């Protein structure tokens, strides 16, 4: 058992550094269902099986065709004619023995829900079932050189969003008591050079800020001119040698460099304010998810003890300083490993309080209904007729085409020309029905006939990578999922995300 655990740690080492052991645990407890083992589907699963998802189940009533084997790495020629769910499960399972793979080959899946031949039909009906069951649903499709992904989840909360360039939480504008006392314990003027040069820049800025306050009516430097004046003040603080030339004090260089960001007012972002003003935060019941209970607790803290600001994050960046001064300062800010597990969760929440995110997607019903279609988003994007939005409209149109003609446009060589005009009719009826006064260039109608619903492997692979990572975000509750429609154009290697 222990040997297995050690082997897993080694195997997953490179990803554990991204989502940690707790993220990995969430993955290993997850069970993902894939409907239709197309190239896109198996590519998504591959990227979930490799990192060690707990289990997967493929639901697919189709039989493997020669065409399928041509673009799908997880189907082989000896599976031609066999059930596709079963065939794909075998070759995907083989990727990682930690994962449990299952398949359902019946056309009528669990819950006596019949799979329609019509892709859109299946999506909408399945979407409704999953929306009610509160199961996250990711609809993925590769159509020619276009990839499309739609996330349908009612509400997804994220504590560990791992923001890329977060500003530090230094509280220099309103130092808390322990920080104030610690700053007071320093007397820069009486320090020897060694100590002076190895004092953390945070202390230096704090000290000079006090000087600044006494000359500027307790107002922080606000604009460029004032910040530059403050920087000059810092420069004057650098020790000078016998000849009056400034010594080499890297910590002062750091202080000067950080003036821009260190002197920003500590405040709560609008994203977090929105979270605090949610109904869910107000009405806490026994069923309320932990996220909202903790959010409420933090909100109460902010409004009472916190004087309108969040609990201190507790981390500081590395900086030129001797070990002792740095560690002391670090401890003042509160960096210390948590003890119990629930304390761990609360500390994690507080540490990330400034970066909480909530993602709420509209349902498919809302997207497709004439009353609630997001007209504004569609028409404003189409101001640029080559925006990825035109690809979305084309995907909606080819589904309309299928409903009328029982096949996708351009599937048969002899019908391509004819299908182009028929597809154009579908495009226009779609635009009219939804009241969208936009125009779709003929080139796109032509292209969507030309590709004849082909699913080139490289486009499926691109989407497979994207979709798998979004699923991992949902499962681990780390990093922020997209909201809610992602379109990839492999012709131009561009992409866009729309909230539809």
């Amino acid at each position, binding site marked *: 058992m222990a040997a297995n655990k050690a082997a897993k740690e080694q195997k997953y080492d490179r990803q554990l550094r991204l989502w940690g052991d707790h993220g990995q645990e969430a993955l290993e407890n997850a069970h993902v269902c894939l409907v239709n083992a197309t190239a896109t589907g198996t590519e998504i699963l591959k990227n979930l099986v490799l990192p060690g998802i707990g289990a997967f189940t493929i639901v697919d009533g189709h039989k493997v065709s020669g065409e399928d084997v041509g673009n799908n790495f997880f189907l082989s020629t000896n599976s031609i004619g066999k059930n596709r769910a079963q065939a794909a499960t075998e070759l995907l399972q083989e990727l990682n023995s930690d994962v449990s793979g299952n398949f359902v080959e019946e056309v009528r899946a669990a819950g006596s829900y019949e799979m329609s031949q019509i892709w859109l039909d299946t999506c909408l009906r399945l979407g409704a079932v999953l929306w009610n069951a509160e199961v996250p649903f990711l609809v993925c499709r590769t159509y020619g050189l276009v990839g499309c992904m739609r996330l349908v989840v009612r509400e997804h909360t994220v504590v560990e969003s791992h923001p890329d360039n977060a500003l530090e939480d230094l509280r220099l504008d309103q130092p808390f008591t322990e920080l104030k006392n610690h700053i007071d314990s320093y007397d820069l003027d009486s320090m020897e050079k060694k100590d002076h040069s190895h004092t953390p820049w945070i202390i230096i800025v704090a000290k000079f800020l006090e000087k600044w306050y006494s000359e500027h009516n307790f107002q922080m430097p606000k604009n460029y001119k004032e910040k530059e004046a403050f920087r000059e003040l810092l420069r004057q603080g650098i020790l000078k040698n016998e000849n009056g030339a400034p010594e080499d004090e890297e910590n002062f260089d750091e202080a000067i460099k950080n003036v821009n960001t260190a002197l920003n007012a500590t405040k709560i972002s609008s994203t977090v304010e929105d979270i605090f003003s949610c109904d869910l935060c107000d009405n806490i019941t026994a069923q309320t998810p932990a996220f909202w209970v903790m959010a409420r607790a933090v909100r109460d803290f902010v409004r009472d003890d916190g004087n309108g600001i969040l609990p201190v994050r507790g981390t500081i960046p590395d900086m030129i300083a001797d070990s002792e001064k740095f560690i002391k300062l670090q401890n003042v800010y509160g960096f210390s490993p948590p003890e119990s597990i629930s304390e761990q969760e609360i500390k994690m929440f507080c540490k990330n309080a400034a970066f909480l995110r909530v993602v709420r997607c509209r349902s498919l019903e809302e997207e497709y209904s004439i009353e609630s279609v997001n007209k504004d988003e569609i028409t404003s994007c189409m101001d640029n007729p080559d925006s990825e939005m035109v690809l979305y409209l084309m995907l909606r149109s080819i589904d309309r085409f299928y409903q009328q003609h029982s096949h996708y446009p351009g599937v048969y060589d002899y019908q391509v020309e004819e299908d182009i005009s028929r597809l154009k009719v579908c495009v226009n009826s779609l635009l009219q029905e939804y009241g969208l006064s936009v125009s779709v260039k003929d080139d796109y109608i032509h292209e969507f006939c030309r590709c004849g619903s082909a699913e080139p492997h490289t486009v499926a692979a691109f989407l497979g990578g*994207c979709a798998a990572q979004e699923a*991992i975000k949902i499962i681990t509750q780390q990093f922020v999922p997209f909201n809610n429609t992602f379109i990839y154009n492999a012709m131009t290697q561009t992409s866009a995300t729309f909230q539809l």
Partner: protein
Amino acid sequence: MAVDEGHVACGGDWDGRWNHLKKFLERSGPFTLPDFEPGTETLQFLLETCKILVIGAGGLGCELLKNLALSGFRNIHVVDMDTIDISNLNRQFLFRSKDVGRPKAEVAAEFVNSRVPGCNVTPHCQKIQDFDESFYRKFHIIVCGLDSVIARRWMNGMLISLLNYENGVVDQSTIIPLIDGGTEGFKGNARVILPGMTACIDCTLELYPPQINFPMCTIASMPRLPEHCIEFARILQWPKEEPFGDGVSLDGDNPEHIQWVFMKAQERASEFNITGVTYRLTQGVVKRVIPAVASTNAVIAAACATEAFKIATSAYVTLNNYLVFSDVDGLYTYTFEAERKENCSACSQVPQDLQFSSSAKLQDVLQYLTESTSLQMKSPAITTTLQGKNKTLYLQTVASIEERTRPNLCKTLKELGLADGQELAVADVTTPQTVLFKLNFTS
């Protein structure tokens, strides 16, 4: 055509196999390149003639081989000198635990050849530097899935060296397109390089952030972070204590070595009240581990392979020329045209300008070559022609020559007999060809 249960004849295609590709090759379309001609010839070219080279059989390489094989490419070569490690298995899906220790190129080729009938991947378990122009010249397209900037620059330099110029204009038939992909955690990029025509690796060297090394004084006397403690054990204690024998250097892949560094780092950390030293962190610092997942590699390799398909078939306009991807917060891509640098040290064909005072020391020149962000050389060897004879001014990589030429470092350029306008030839691991510099005395 009915297919027997079981084996298809090796190399034989089956009904419908290439349906997903044929739509793009046998039909005209509004977004194809002007020289695209719909028909069956392009597929034949892919299947029978096109020779494509994949550099690296790791995270990107495995994905690339799969993608190319399923896009009609059959004549594929792959170069990788590495062997399989257990930590590869979370994303390098052509390998299994039973393959640990075997050469990556070999196992990757075996797997793809077996899974994709008719595909012929030829492995080369060697360094890219083991091959010369005669090898690289044979390929129509080269796709890189490397994990080192130095190797990329070398490949870049190699393809530039294949170019023929006539009256200052590059002969297009000597251009081999280079598609380069790179990933790190949840970020990645893919670019298309037409050597001699579009921005090359060195044109945009500043895009690669320099490697972070902690200052020695921090490591030696003022540690603050657990990383400082680890570096102390690695850089200072190991050479001093030689815990596994005389001259035995630290092997990041040896768990016993890492364990030793870990224990020593912990001791140092407790001395300074620093928390956070873990085995995982130790390994990460010693091996300079870059976090990696399957999904990012899948995305970038897919983009690269799509471009390879476009270049080989003219079915669509190629990426012009750089794609950046991140899926930390939602999904983000940014596509732009990286510009050529007029005086690029790799592809501009003009001798690089070296501005120094005649009383500057050779050491100063050496420092410039290594520290300049646009050159970033590793251990340059400088030679010149004096009185009609080739003279090595300084060379680091051969101990005897290093010793002999070391005194030159302290001499001034004037003392070394160098004149204004003198040409210096510099060789370095970052390029297969020597780079020409022209000395410009400022005083």
